Each structure stands twice: as structure tokens, then as C-alpha cells.
């Protein structure tokens, strides 16, 4: 073909060139010259290149010459496949992969180019000399095709027009809207109406939601072309239309959920303790926000009073004195006077904020507690009179200081100012002494040698403190007791036997004592009182912490005789035996795993077999379930999967989408024990191994 074309182009070119020149020179056009020159040129060319001699053998020879990769075997391709021998077959398979050959015509393309150049030159000269109008006319401006908007949704051809009206629920306050798009994004509980007109009467019209709910539609018009349907949408998923048994594409339903009111309490802290002397009131500050509007919010407070078994609870609803009017976000402040609630020392208040949005969804905050310290409880000796107590007098001292302070305050009116100041100062000194005593536990510097540092430390004994002390031990001498355990010759603070937690609390106690001392020394015992109480409370906590409670036991067991153990008569006792077989009911994961591998195998475009289709269907079930809950992530996969089942040849895109969805559905698995394989054991090797063990 190429050769023939080349001959024609060359001859025609020469004919045109020579003919036009001849005519130009001759003056009058004589057309037979063209034919004559054409025929002559063609004859000359064909005598050089006998194109009728080109046959399959010629071509295979030509290809073998030009392409070494054919390994001189292209003639084998001309043979019938069943005539080929084994080796020939292998060779054919080897060279077939090089076919179709690239640039088969490259060597002769230059010749064709020459022929074409002749043709163009001839035609050019012909046109120039004949005064043919210029090429302008042929350069037509390519009209720009109008931009075609690719519709995202595929609509059934029977559907002539459609529009959807969405009425959002009233609580949202959103206006009703219309759309001409099947994909929906609506508020929870919105009512959606579909108005669809078909271009011809339709016998049956269904809407299928989430692949399971099927609704039959009734025509609104007389001739079964106008249909409408409405439904309130509460959950995510997808739907499709079915017209006369033809199913449409899947359309997504996205639900905009309404979340309950979000409540954030900024003030007070989750647990507040009100000490003596502190104002018995709290300032509540909370931040409320909602998607559409808050209709109600109040504080629910529960007061717990009493102790032991006589605890009584009283519940009270405290309103915020604001109107909500459906505001989307609010900052609420409330001043709560605990005394008005009837709170006494020792009572606790539990409260939370409850709010309601305009949909009627209720939400509540975490429970916060406020407790008022009971001074009476602190002063009681209940915890100190029983059990072991290492340092009882100190606690008593703090208690004594409080009692004295209160006594001083009570007598303030009846005594002279001088006397008052003196007593206050004395109390301050007492407080200081007490503080210093506690300071020793922390290894603080001692100012007044109270307790004193022990210097009976024997250098020779090094770190061995198991050595008996010759001095008789004084009962209740804490210092002596401590010395037994403490080791003080490096950092004093680390030498105590307290845990860091206890140390921290001790420090806090000392701080409170400091403050109390300051107030007492500045003759303001009423200000000192809260600090004193706090110090006492912290000390009490410390005391509770270090106490171990062991209940009394009344039962005494007989001593075990080891020789009699396990000698009882056991004949009558039967050994329990259990036979169970675990049945795995849920095979979906296994199927999905198989499907994943199957999809991968079909990436080369192999069609699915009937068995494969069954697996695809079981996968579809899983994807439908996933799509109903997460339409945005799984709907494309479901569409692709349906295309895969419907089409003969799978498309790579669909395979990838479905694979991805299934891959995500499978999720990461847990590893399970699996037997490893070994190489084949040969008898010789085993024999060798067994002998090897002897050495």
C-alpha cells in the first residue's frame, strides 16, 4: 500500500509539475500532457519497484532484515499455529511480544517524504500557475465548542424533569428550599418531597432507600407521567429510583445532625472546699452553645447533709434569670449563696447545669461539688483516741491554739487591749513553736533547738544502723524513734521517712501555720482563725493517710497438718469434662478478605465468573450496611461494585474504589499463632542430627 501510494504521489507530483510548466510555456492548457507524463512516470517507477511482487514472504524477509529482535523468525508467523513444532511454538511466542513492531516504516518513510515533497511541489506549482485562490479559505477558524458542563448525577432517561423540595424541621429555623439534584444534604427530620415527571407513562415507580426499604409511588396526574413522593429523613444512607424495573444510579443522603447543647463550666473548679472564714458563696460562670438554639437551662443542685447513715439529700432547681429566646451561644453567670440553700458546715453541694435545645434534646454538664468544712468535725477527738498515733500532742496543740484563739476572740470585749495583744502574741509564739516542730519532719533549719539535731551518730558504723542503741528508749520520744529510721548525714530533707506526697502536704501545713502566726503576731486573731483551721484540716488528712485499719477478727482456724493434706477419699468425685466446638457464625470478614484478593486478580481485565459473582454479592451486602451509616465514604464504592457485577469487563477504576472500601472495612487484624514451615527433612539429615546430639 505504502509503495503504491509512493508511486502515485511521485508520479502525480511529476505530472503536475511538468504539465503545468508545459502549459505555462505553451500558453493554452492541454490536459492530456498531465495524463501522459503521469503514465510515463508511473511506468518508470513501477519498473524500478515492482510492487505486485510484494507478498508475505517479501515482507517477512524485509522485517527480518530490518529488525534483529525478530531473530530471523518472522516467517514462522505465516505458518498455521497447529503446524508449528514445540521449538517453533516457543520461538513464535518469543517474537510475538515484539509485535506490533514500532517504526516498521521508518526506513522507507524518508522515501515517502521525498515523494510527498514532489507532490507538494507539483501541486504548489500547479496552483501558482493556474492562479488558484490562496489557501485562506481553508483556514477555517475552529469554532470553540461551548463548555459542556458534566453533570455529576446520572439520571434515568425516562425522567423528563424533577425537583425536590426540602422542608427543614421547625426547630432549625431554616426556610424551605428546592433543588434539582437528587443528592440530598438535609437536617435531621427534614421532610423531602420528590416531584418527578417522566417523558412517557410509567407502569411502576418505586423508591428504594438503603437498598432495603421499598416504596411504591402513585401517579399524581392522569396519564401516569407525574409522580410525587415525600418522606421524612432521619438517618443517613442512599436511595435510588426504579422505573418499570430499571434502577437508577444511587443518590446519597447526608444528614446534618442536631447536637445537644454543649455546656462548659468555667467557674468554679470541679471540687471546691470552703474553709472557715471564707465567704460561703460561689460564683458560677458557664458557656452554653448549640447548633440551632437553647430554650432552657437551669442548675440542678443537690445538698447532702448529715453523716454516717443519716445523710439526707435535698434537691433544688436554680434558674438563671435570663431569657434564652433560642440564642445559639450564651454566657451564664449565677451567684449562689450557700447559706440561702440551707448549707451548714459539713454539708456538700452537688450541682450540674441542665440545658435543652429547641429540638427538645437535653444535655447536662459534669457534676461539680462544693463542700463547707465542718469545724466541729475537725475539733473532735474521734480520730485520735483510737489506734496508733505517733504525734498526737501536735495535733492537739493546733486544736488548742484554735480553741485559745476563739476564747480570746470571745473575751475580747471584756479584757484590756494590752492584755489582748499580749495573749495574741503568746498564741503566735505557740504557733511558731508548733511550726518549728513540724518543720523538723521536713528537716528545716531549727531556730530554737526544739527537738535538736541528733549528734550521737557514730561515724564508725557507716551506714549500718541495725546496731543496737545502748541508751534506753524513751517512750513517745519521736526524735529517738525517727533516728532509728532516719539517716541525716546528707541532705536533711531526704533523710526523713516520709513519702514526697506527705512531705508536700506537710509543707502546706507549715505555710498555713506561717500565715496564722503572722496574723496572731499582728494582733488579728480573727484573721488567723481560717489559717489555723486549714492547718488543722490538712493535719487531719495527713493523720488519716498514715493510718492502717485492721479489723478485729474473731474466727480462729485450726492449724493445718501438712501430712493429712490431699489424703481424702476422692472415689466419688468425678473429674469434670467439657467438650465444646466453637462455631464461627460471622464469616463476613473471611469473605471480604477473599474478595479483596479476587478484585486484585481481576485488575488485568479478566471478567468475573459465576462463583466470583456470588462473592461480589456477599461483599455488596457488607458495603450496603457500611453505606447506610457512612454514605459519603462508601456510596462511590457501592456504585462501582454494582457496575462490576453488571458489566462484563471490570474497569480498573471501579476495582480500585471497591478494593479501597473493602480494605477499610476489613480494618487491621490481630495476629494469631500460625505454624511455621520447615524444609523437607531428609532421612539422612535427620540421622545426622540425631547423632550430632550425642556430642
Amino acid at each position, binding site marked *: 500500500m505504502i509503495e503504491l501510494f509512493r508511486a502515485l504521489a511521485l508520479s502525480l507530483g511529476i505530472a503536475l509539475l511538468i504539465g503545468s510548466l508545459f502549459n505555462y510555456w505553451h500558453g493554452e492548457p492541454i490536459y492530456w500532457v498531465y495524463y501522459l507524463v503521469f503514465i510515463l512516470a508511473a511506468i518508470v517507477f513501477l519498473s524500478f519497484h515492482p510492487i505486485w511482487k510484494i507478498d508475505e514472504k517479501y515482507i517477512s524477509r524485509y522485517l527480518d532484515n530490518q529488525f534483529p529482535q525478530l531473530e530471523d523468525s518472522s516467517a514462522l508467523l505465516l505458518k498455521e499455529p497447529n503446524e508449528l513444532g514445540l521449538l517453533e511454538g516457543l520461538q513464535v511466542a518469543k517474537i510475538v511480544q515484539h509485535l506490533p513492531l514500532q517504526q516498521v516504516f521508518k526506513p522507507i518513510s524518508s522515501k515517502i517524504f521525498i515523494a510527498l515533497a514532489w507532490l507538494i511541489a507539483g501541486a504548489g506549482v500547479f496552483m501558482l500557475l493556474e492562479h488558484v485562490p490562496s489557501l485562506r479559505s481553508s483556514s477555517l477558524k475552529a469554532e470553540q465548542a461551548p463548555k459542556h458542563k458534566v453533570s455529576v448525577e446520572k439520571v434515568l432517561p425516562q425522567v423528563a424533569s424533577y425537583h425536590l423540595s426540602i422542608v427543614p424541621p421547625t426547630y432549625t429555623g431554616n426556610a424551605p428550599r428546592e433543588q434539582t439534584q437528587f443528592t440530598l444534604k438535609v437536617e435531621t427530620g427534614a421532610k423531602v418531597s420528590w416531584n418527578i415527571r417522566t417523558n412517557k407513562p410509567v407502569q411502576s415507580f418505586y423508591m428504594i432507600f438503603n437498598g432495603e426499604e421499598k416504596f411504591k409511588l402513585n401517579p399524581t396526574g392522569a396519564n401516569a407521567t407525574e409522580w410525587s413522593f415525600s418522606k421524612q429523613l432521619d438517618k443517613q444512607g442512599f436511595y435510588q429510583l426504579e422505573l418499570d424495573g430499571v434502577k437508577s444510579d444511587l443518590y446519597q443522603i447526608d444528614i446534618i445532625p442536631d447536637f445537644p447543647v454543649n455546656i462548659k463550666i468555667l467557674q468554679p473548679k470541679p471540687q471546691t472546699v470552703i474553709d472557715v472564714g471564707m465567704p460561703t458563696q460561689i460564683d458560677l460562670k458557664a458557656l452554653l452553645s448549640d447548633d440551632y438554639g437553647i430554650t432552657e437551662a437551669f442548675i440542678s443542685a443537690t445538698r447532702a447533709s448529715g453523716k454516717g447513715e443519716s445523710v439526707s439529700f435535698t434537691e433544688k432547681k436554680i434558674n438563671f434569670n435570663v431569657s434564652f429566646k433560642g440564642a445559639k451561644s450564651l454566657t451564664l453567670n449565677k451567684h449562689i449563696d450557700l447559706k440561702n440553700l440551707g448549707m451548714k458546715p459539713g454539708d456538700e453541694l452537688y450541682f450540674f447545669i441542665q440545658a435543652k435545645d429547641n429540638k427538645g434534646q437535653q444535655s447536662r454538664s459534669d457534676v461539680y461539688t462544693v463542700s463547707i468544712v465542718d469545724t466541729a468535725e475537725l475539733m473532735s477527738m474521734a480520730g485520735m483516741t483510737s489506734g496508733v498515733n505517733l504525734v498526737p500532742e501536735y495535733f492537739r496543740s493546733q486544736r488548742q491554739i484554735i480553741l485559745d484563739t476563739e476564747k480570746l476572740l470571745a473575751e475580747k470585749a471584756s479584757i484590756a487591749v494590752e492584755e489582748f495583744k499580749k495573749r495574741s502574741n503568746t498564741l503566735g509564739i505557740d504557733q511558731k513553736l508548733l511550726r518549728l516542730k513540724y518543720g523538723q519532719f521536713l528537716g528545716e533549719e531549727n531556730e530554737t533547738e526544739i527537738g535538736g539535731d541528733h549528734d550521737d551518730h557514730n561515724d564508725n558504723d557507716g551506714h549500718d544502723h541495725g546496731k543496737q542503741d545502748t541508751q534506753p528508749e524513751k517512750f513517745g520520744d519521736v526524735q529517738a524513734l525517727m533516728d532509728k529510721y532516719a539517716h541525716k548525714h546528707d541532705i536533711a530533707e531526704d533523710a526523713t521517712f516520709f513519702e514526697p506526697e506527705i512531705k508536700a502536704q506537710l509543707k502546706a501545713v507549715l505555710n498555713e501555720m506561717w500565715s496564722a502566726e503572722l496574723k496572731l503576731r499582728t494582733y488579728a486573731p480573727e484573721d488567723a482563725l481560717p489559717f489555723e483551721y486549714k492547718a488543722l484540716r490538712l493535719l487531719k488528712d495527713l493523720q488519716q493517710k498514715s493510718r492502717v485499719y485492721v479489723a478485729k477478727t474473731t474466727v480462729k482456724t485450726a492449724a493445718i497438718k501438712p501430712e493429712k493434706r490431699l489424703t481424702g477419699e476422692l472415689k466419688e468425685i468425678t473429674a469434670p469434662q467439657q467438650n465444646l466446638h466453637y462455631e464461627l457464625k460471622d464469616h463476613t470478614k473471611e469473605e471480604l478478605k477473599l474478595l479483596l484478593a479476587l478484585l486484585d486478580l481481576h485488575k488485568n481485565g479478566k471478567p468475573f465468573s459465576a462463583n466470583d459473582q456470588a462473592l461480589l454479592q456477599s461483599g455488596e451486602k457488607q458495603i450496603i450496611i457500611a453505606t447506610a451509616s457512612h454514605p459519603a465514604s462508601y456510596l462511590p464504592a457501592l456504585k462501582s461494585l454494582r457496575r462490576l457485577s453488571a458489566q462484563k469487563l471490570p474497569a480498573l477504576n471501579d476495582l480500585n474504589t471497591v478494593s479501597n472500601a473493602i480494605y477499610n472495612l476489613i480494618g487491621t487484624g490481630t495476629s494469631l499463632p500460625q*505454624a511455621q514451615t520447615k524444609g523437607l527433612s531428609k532421612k539422612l539429615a535427620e540421622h545426622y542430627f540425631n547423632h550430632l546430639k550425642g556430642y
Partner: protein
Amino acid sequence: MGFGTFVIGICMVLLAFLIYKEIKRTHRHWLTGRIVVSIVMIACFAFLILPLSFETSLQNKKGQLNLITDGVSADSLAKIKGIKYYTDPLLADQLKQKADFIPDLAYYLIEHKDVQNIEVYGYGLAADELKKLKNYKITFHPSAMPYGIISCNWTEKLHEEETFTVQGSFHNTLNKAIQLKLTGFGTALDSVMLPAQKLSNFNLNHQIRQKGKALLELIALNGKDTLTKEIIPVQTITRVPLRVFMLTSFPSFEYNFLKKWLYENQYPLMVRSRISKDKYSVDFLNRNSSTINSIQAGLLEKEDVLIIDQQELENISPAEKRAIEQAVTKGMGLIIWADQPGANTALINSFKLTTLQVQDKLTNLFVLDREMALASLPSNQQLYISPSSRQQAVIASKEQHLVAAEELYGNGKIVATTLQNSYQWMLSGQQRDYARYWSELINAAARKQEPGITLQTHDYRPVVQHRLLFQIETADTNVPLIQYGEKHLAVKQNLLFPNSWEAQTWPLNSGWQTLSVNQRDFNFFVYGKANWKALRQYELLEQNLNFVRQHQVEVANTQETTTVYRHEVSKWWFFICFVFAIGFLWLEDRVFNRG
């Protein structure tokens, strides 16, 4: 010669006549031009009859053969002196006109006995060709290291849920860092950035999720442009349920949780816990019952793992202990919950237990083999195993305190663990860590399965239309029946090992292929020729370098020879010149006459 002289003579006469006519012309317009054109015309006419040819010469060393192989760039090709040859037909397009084709190097060398020295350019010759050149001096001029993945390794057959790891090195010649992505199932599984202009190693992981075969891809990306794309075939091994036997002195939490976990994962399980003297509570889960009041060698023969606590190991009779010892020697796995240091029983006394005063909670256990961390446990651990040269650590804490270790015992393995509260992972919802922990212990100990038949391809990456050699081992010495596609393959028995066989074929298609040996199917993947090109080129390069290093043949210095080539100028050029010259002479005359 006679004809040539005759033609030249005629032409000279014709030229003289034409020049005479020109000079004699009345108006003498454009005289010089016309004379020059006439000379050109006559010259062209002469060359139309007498072919014009010229010669070129090439310097070549005597006895030297320049072989061009794949990977030679145009620049370096131009620098090579002498005649160039190539043997790979696929280079034909690239080297046409520049080098000559040798269809078969061996034949060529027989014909050209003088060749002693072979200069190889590019990535080098294939192994089977190199083999023929042992007696020649080969000088190898390697091309630059190819761009792309030059080495890569992974395990093709994995268990389900196992973590697949692909490692290798990438030669990035670009000026930009590139991204290497492991993709599959329509999604990216793992990726890594590789620095610019560097040979860097990579390591990508992915947990197997499919059941069966799958093709993953390793894609190198520069922004959004794909630079290279390689295929990674993986297939899963069918899970063989392990048979587990558990013995405890009392039903502890650890025992109950493990029993439940194995039962729910459908392992055939036999458990026995002591209630009283010679009284046991026995469970047969996912299997048929048998009598297990006394443990005998026959009972243990089929079990893959025996899990026993230390106390029970001490409680059982000496005969039972011997039975266990024997079974372990024959390949059964033994896992011992060790809880007391200083044990005397033979199977456990090689594990030296030590008590460490570690107060902190067990937060940082990890699986040594996989460098996989386990979640922290809420209680503290004081008993550890001292490292020993005979044992290998399985689970250890970050401070290198061993919690579990394994030891070889005959054909089998003994694993001891000091962790008594792994069930707390279950309680705190960390099922995955529990599974990892027990999988690791059981996998370490379990009896290894006899494959029955093993099949290996000789090449690590079989390539389409290349010889593919299978090495097959069977359990017995009967000739295996091997079917590949519709053909049966002939097998060759190994001379030394009568159960070892060899078969060969030439795969015609790439992709997954199946070979069945005695009706058992084995899948293997055949790569296309375009796959793993850089890697194969690099391997070839290394192979050639090694070959040259190992085969140093000394050859006497060679002299240079010159080869002369004769080229003929196409007559068409002269014809065109002739036509134009005539045309000019005619047209000039006409134009002047009109003017």
C-alpha cells in the same frame, strides 16, 4: 575503466560545445552564471552514469572487539573508538548505523579467531553469554548506576495478618527529594521520602489484609509525576490450626483467658487443670476427646505446643516428664509459665530466673524479633530470665530484662515466660497486645509443619520468556508429576539427593502462574520484561564486575588496524541538480527574451 573514460570524454566534448554556444550567443546575458550552471549540469549528468563514492576509515586495535550492551548513552557511544558491535537485538533501534549486530557471539568468536580482547560497554552481558567468554580478556566499562530501585527484597509468602515488609535501596539522581509509595487495593499503604542525589535505603510496612494473591506496587513519585512503578506480588499461606495442649496445677486467670482466646480463635485445644490428687478438670475444645489422665508419648506426638506451668511440671510423674522430654526432642514446642527461681526439673532448669527489685510498672515490653512495642501492664514484674548464651530472648523490657526466652531442645523448642498476668491486657481492652504476645510465644515454640513438597524457582524474580528452573523436593523418591498450564514438564533427578528434582520451562506470559506438583498447586509470579529494570541492570552490572574480577586473562599488547568503508552517493541528488540546472538554463533564456 574504458566505459568511464568514454563517458568523461563525451561529457567533456558536450561541455566544450555548450560553452562554445554560450559564448557565441548574441546578447551574452548572465554569461558566467550560465557557464557555471552548464558545468554543474554536465557534471551531474556524468555522475548519473558513473557512481560517485567516497571512503572513510576506522582505527581499530587488532584482536579487540567492542561490545555495546544496554545502558550506553549516546555521548559515551561517540567516544568509543573502533568498530562497535552489539548482541542484544533489542538495541537495534538505538544502535542502527552506529554499530553492527552479532546474532550469536559464540559463532562470531569461532569465526574470528584473532579476537582476544573484548571491551564491554554498558551494563554488561548476561550470565549465559559471559560463561562463553572465560578465555578472553574482558575489559568492562560500566555505565553509571541506573536510576531507580537497585535492590529490593520482601517475603512473597506470608501468613494472614502478618506484617509485610519491603526493604531495598533507591538511587535517586534527581535534584529533588522523591516520595516512594507502597500502594495496593486502590490506596496508599505506606510511604517514605527519599533525599535527592543519594543512594538511600527504604523500609515500608503493611499488614496483610487479603486472603490469597495480591499485587502491590512500589511507586516513586516526583510531586505528582510517576517516575518508576514496580510490581510486588504477595500471597498468603493458608492457616493451619495449631494443636495446643495446656496443663496447669490450678486454673489461674492466665490459664482461663488463654483457653478462651484460643478456643474462640478455633484452635484445637486440650486443657487439663488439677483439682485434687489425680483429679483433673479436662476440656476438649474444637476437637475430639481422649483420655489425658496420664501423659504418654503417643498423646504428645500430634500436639504442636504444650503449655504448662512450673508447678505442674514439678507435680507430674517422672515417666510423664520423660514423655514430654521425648516429645520436645521430636519437635513439639513447650511453653512454661515460670514463677519460681531455682527449679530442679530438667526442662526448665536451664532458664536462670532472677528476682529484680523493679518497683515500676511493666510499661515497656517489646517483641525483640519485630521491634514491636507492647502496651504497658498495670502491675509490676519482678521475676526475669538472666540472659544465657544458649537462649534467645523473645520478649524483653526496654532495660533488656528478659521476660520470655526460647531454647533449642533436640528438634523442638522450649519457651519460658515469667509474665503471669498477660490477661490484664485483655481486661484493659488491649486485645491486640495480648494476641501479639501469645502469637509470638506460640509461634516461637510451635512444631514446624512438614510441607510435603517444596518448590522453588531458581531465579528470585522469574522473567517472561526466560528459562525458568524449578527446584522441587518431594517427601519420597517417586518421580513427581508436574503440570504447567496444559503441558507436563519433564523432571531431572538430583544425583545426590534422590528426592530432589529439577524441571524447566519458558513462561510465555507474565502474571500469576500455577505449577502443580502431584496435584498440589503452587503459585508463582512471572514478571514482564519491563518490571524491575533498574534492579536487573544493577544486578547485571555487579555480575559483570564480579566476572571480570574473577577472570583475569592476560593478552599480549595488540596493534592497530584500519578498516576502510566505501560509501556511494545516491544518484537522485545528481538527478535533482541536473533537472534544476537544465530548468535554470531554459527559464533564464525565456525570461530574458520576454524582457
